[in-house]
């Protein structure tokens, strides 16, 4: 199991998911858009979950969204122990303006200031030579 020097989990990058990680490295948020019905699919899917079309194009999406829900973790559970250095971790479900939904860690914000409905903007944190992770901060 690959680990970063900090001992956090690294994704196993495949041909399916490489465009996402590479784009994040370039500070861009990309998702798979169905070339038939236009639905954005996330996390990466083998076909469009809406219409079953395998024609999915990676497209850049606007890095803005609204917090749909959030939970602040004060202990590491079911994840790699070195997340303890980041506690408390504010984990959100973000509804992106372009219509997809994703998990995102909220940074640059105190837990008691974070709230559902808060407008957020993506930023990117490198985790390896090949990959970065989108996180969010108040917009």
């Amino acid at each position, binding site marked *: *199991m690959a680990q970063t020097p900090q001992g*956090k*989990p*690294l*994704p*196993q990058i*495949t041909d*399916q*998911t490489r465009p996402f990680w590479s784009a994040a490295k370039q500070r861009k948020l990309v998702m798979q858009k169905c070339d038939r019905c236009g*639905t*954005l699919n*996330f*996390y*990466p899917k083998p076909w469009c*979950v*809406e219409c079953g079309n395998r024609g999915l194009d990676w497209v850049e999406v606007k890095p803005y969204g609204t917090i*749909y*829900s*959030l*939970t*602040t*973790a*004060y*202990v*590491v*559970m*079911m*994840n*790699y*122990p070195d*997340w303890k250095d*980041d506690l408390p*971790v504010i*984990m959100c*479900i973000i*509804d992106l303006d372009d*219509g*997809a*939904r*994703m*998990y*995102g*860690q909220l940074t640059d914000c105190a*837990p008691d200031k974070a709230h*559902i409905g808060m407008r957020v903007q993506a930023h990117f944190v490198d*985790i390896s030579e090949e990959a970065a*992770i989108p996180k969010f901060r108040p917009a």
Partner: protein
Amino acid sequence: MRAEVAIVGFGRTPYSRVKPGERIYTVDEYLAWAADLALAKAGMSKNDFDGQGLGVAHAEAAHTVNWSAAVAESLGISPRVLLRADQGGASASAMLIRAAAMIHAGIVDRVLVMGADTPLTIPSIAPGLPLSPERTRGVFWDFQGPFGVMGANAQFGLVHARYLHQHKNRIKPEHLGKIAVTTRYHASLNPGAIYRKPFTVEEYLSSRILSDPVRLLDCVPMVNGGLAYIVTSVETAKKLTDKPIYLLGFGEVSNYYHGSRNQPDITYTGFEQTVPEALKMAGVQHKDIDVFEPYDDYPMVVLIQMEDYGFCKKGEGGKFVEERDLTFKGDFPISTDGGQLSGGQPGGAIGGFMPIIEAVTQLRGEGGERQVKGASIAAASGFGGMTYARNNRSCVTMIFGSEA
């Protein structure tokens, strides 16, 4: 399919928190132990399942190729049909439906269904955490673990927080505390439960926050253990026991969306679909249900089930809990064995046996100190897995009765 099969035996091993010096049992040993208890209850032998059905719920600790056939080998049973479910906490109930369908079709007459896991002695990628290698493979993990999602506490915390947001004037922590306190009270009456010392709502409220709004006393404790049940045709059941417990109705759905696929309302579960199906098949109404055995790993999951089962309207779960007596003596008994919350969860895939086995225990009148007086109809849930940023993956509703 109404009342075409019945449960005639069941077993639940002692649970373990793996205290120093304790004998540590393997998954195979727990499976045999649970099956032994179920066979004894039914007055059957393992050889009665040669040429019949054998079901085994996916166990993380025992992950191997041909797992169900390997179990048949280790138990020395030669079944005609093997079932293996990997639906997490819905595995036990999903296999009950599969077994009922096979019995209905005449393929087999009886099925021995088992589950065991040892999450406290699992090979883990991180010492001290029940995080098996299989949980950390694949695209589903890659878009959660590296993002900082802290497993079930975070996933349920997100559902919980959204519920509080949508119903903020109607839900109080005390409501969830009452559910947690009730499970512990029932656990105090069940020698098999792992945590048996009662606590108060005040103690619940002062337990520390792990993943806001989820508190320590909201969280299911992991244990090692195993459970099993035997389901058979009504004809055979009547020969074996004078207390067969009939499967009156069921409903099942996986990957349910309430609303759009991309941005659904995560405070709803598939139970809003499975419950009407199960009640219709059973020919019973909500008021006929004497005891409810929800899937009870978090109090908020229980509250959402009360709503999605239709015992009250969405958003009224808090008021419902406040107005009802949830104990075995009360007007809406739930989680009479102490639930998974106080009883313990033998891994994420095996706790789903507990609602079935407690429902059958109650309907047979064998609940001892926690017996619901005169219980003849029970509802029980299977609830398995968590999706990406939504609610759970599989919902099963079962209606059981002591009369066909």
